[in-house]
């Protein structure tokens, strides 16, 4: 039996085991759930070693990645510093020296915060800018971008709906004063409706995503796994 055949067979059994939960909780499902968790963790540890720690830290530090005949540069010793600094994270398990872990956490938060601050404007700046839309959308020449006479009704209606939804939802999340004035009250209620429609869209999309996962598994079971099972049973009788 080839490794490929064994892989497909085990994959099919594991898929059926996981879906057996839909009938009821059972040891078959529980076993494969633990196998999946173990595989995930094991893969993560092995992959981190093979693709990060070994090639980017240990091999350069020990000079094992050098071309034959090239001298060991003492600058490589400096790699100990980030490695040692990262290892301080493990002091989180020590009651007395826990403050050492906070150095690493603080450093990570600082870098993350600084990068996020910069990234925030790149991401949301443009979105805020693009939310300023003309209520009367002028038709433009696609080649020269020059404004032509007339307005696009569909684009204008789209822009009006967008701006109305934006204002209503922002009103809903405006908590600085009471929503007791009729206009604010109505706008806030409309904002809640807009949010509900959005959540509905998210929920519908989620159902579609889950169906996609199930379809892929069914395609695997029907097309690949069934063929592998057939191959397995025909093995002893084949040439």
């Amino acid at each position, binding site marked *: 039996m080839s490794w490929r055949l064994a892989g497909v067979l085990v994959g099919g059994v594991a898929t059926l085991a996981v879906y057996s939960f*839909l*009938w009821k909780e059972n040891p078959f499902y529980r076993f494969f759930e633990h196998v999946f968790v173990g595989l995930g963790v094991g*893969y*993560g540890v092995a*992959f*981190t070693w093979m*693709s*990060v720690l070994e090639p980017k830290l240990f091999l350069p530090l020990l000079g094992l990645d050098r071309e034959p005949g090239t001298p060991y540069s003492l600058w490589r010793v400096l790699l100990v510093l980030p490695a040692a600094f990262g290892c301080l994270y493990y002091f989180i398990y020590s009651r007395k020296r826990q403050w050492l872990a906070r150095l690493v956490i603080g450093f990570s938060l600082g*870098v*993350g915060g600084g*990068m*996020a601050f*910069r*990234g*925030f404007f*790149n*991401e949301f700046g*443009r*979105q805020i*800018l*693009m939310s300023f839309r003309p209520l009367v959308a002028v038709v433009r020449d696609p080649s020269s971008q020059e404004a032509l006479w007339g307005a696009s009704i569909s684009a204008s209606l789209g822009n009006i709906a967008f701006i109305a939804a934006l204002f209503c939802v922002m009103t809903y999340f405006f908590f600085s004063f009471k929503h007791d004035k009729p206009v604010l009250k109505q706008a806030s209620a409309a904002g809640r409706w807009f949010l509900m429609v*959005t959540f509905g*869209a*998210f929920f519908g*999309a*989620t*159902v*579609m*995503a889950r*169906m*996609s*996962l*199930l*379809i*892929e*598994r*069914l*395609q695997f079971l*029907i*097309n690949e796994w069934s063929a592998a099972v057939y191959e397995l049973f025909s093995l002893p009788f084949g040439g």
Partner: protein
Amino acid sequence: MKRGLTEFLLAIDRRVIYCLVAVFLAVPILFEWKMNPGVMSTAREAYDAIEAVRHEEGSIVVVAIDWGPATKAENQPQTEAVIRHLMLRRIPLAVVTLTPFGAMYTREIPTRLAAEIGREYGKDWVSWGYQPGWMIAVRGLAKDIPGFLKGVDANGRSLDELPAMKGVEDASNVALVCEFTGLVGAVETWIRYFHVKGKPTPIAHGCTSITIPQGYNYLDARQIVGLLEGMAGAASYNELLRGRNEFDVVRKALSELDQPAALRALEEEGVASALDKLPPEHSAREKLSSELEKVNWPDAAPIEAMTCQSFAHLLILLFIILGNVGLYLGKRERGEEK
């Protein structure tokens, strides 16, 4: 009898529903039913963005495979369709991943497609492999690609030996980023940090169905140039690729037949107009039509999957209607009792 029906509708066992869903999904797979997918405008925008990329030295397209087995069902057909398109157009591409679980796919998918289409590693595609650090990795690549990769690809080969990497220095040499993910924060990271001198690189995005509404925020603000929406996006893209193959078949045939009017109609209006321009009695007309029928989707799996989706949606609609009928009858009966 009526009470029995109401009770039945309101207490259908969930396992009955699961079984029916499984049957409805399995039938199109077993009988190999495929419905022609409609082409979504968002997928067409992504397709057009790739069609607009020119093959120039010192320019590359980055394909970010930021997904793993959890979202393979939706992200893999998207990724394959786009890599296939790039390889067919012979646009050099670099695959990279920000997640450890994507690393295996950065090897497997382009290797398989390159063998199928006849493309060569180093010349037509390269792998930058897994790059840890998320925003730091993306920022590092944007500023100095060879420097951040330490001058080597995922296999340890020098970038100088790879013709596809010639002249590729920073984000300004990246014509397009095609980012596929089901993870929160991945496409945001590329939007936020993959730019140089304030000029953002165009990004085409393939998302899972769950994140479609979020993807529209970026599309609406033109932060992405196209969107492949879950499995439906992959099916649409395959339909566009099939249209591309049809176009090539017709162009080749018309060139051989020396039909300039039909060729002009093909370039300007498409395959159907070109066929109309052929004289009705022309012998090639029938032959061409039968050849076009043979042009298939490069990857039929997402087309089949969308057929299953349609069946499942019909079943869900049916259950929603049945549930509401049961609820209505139940309310009416309670009203009668009072």
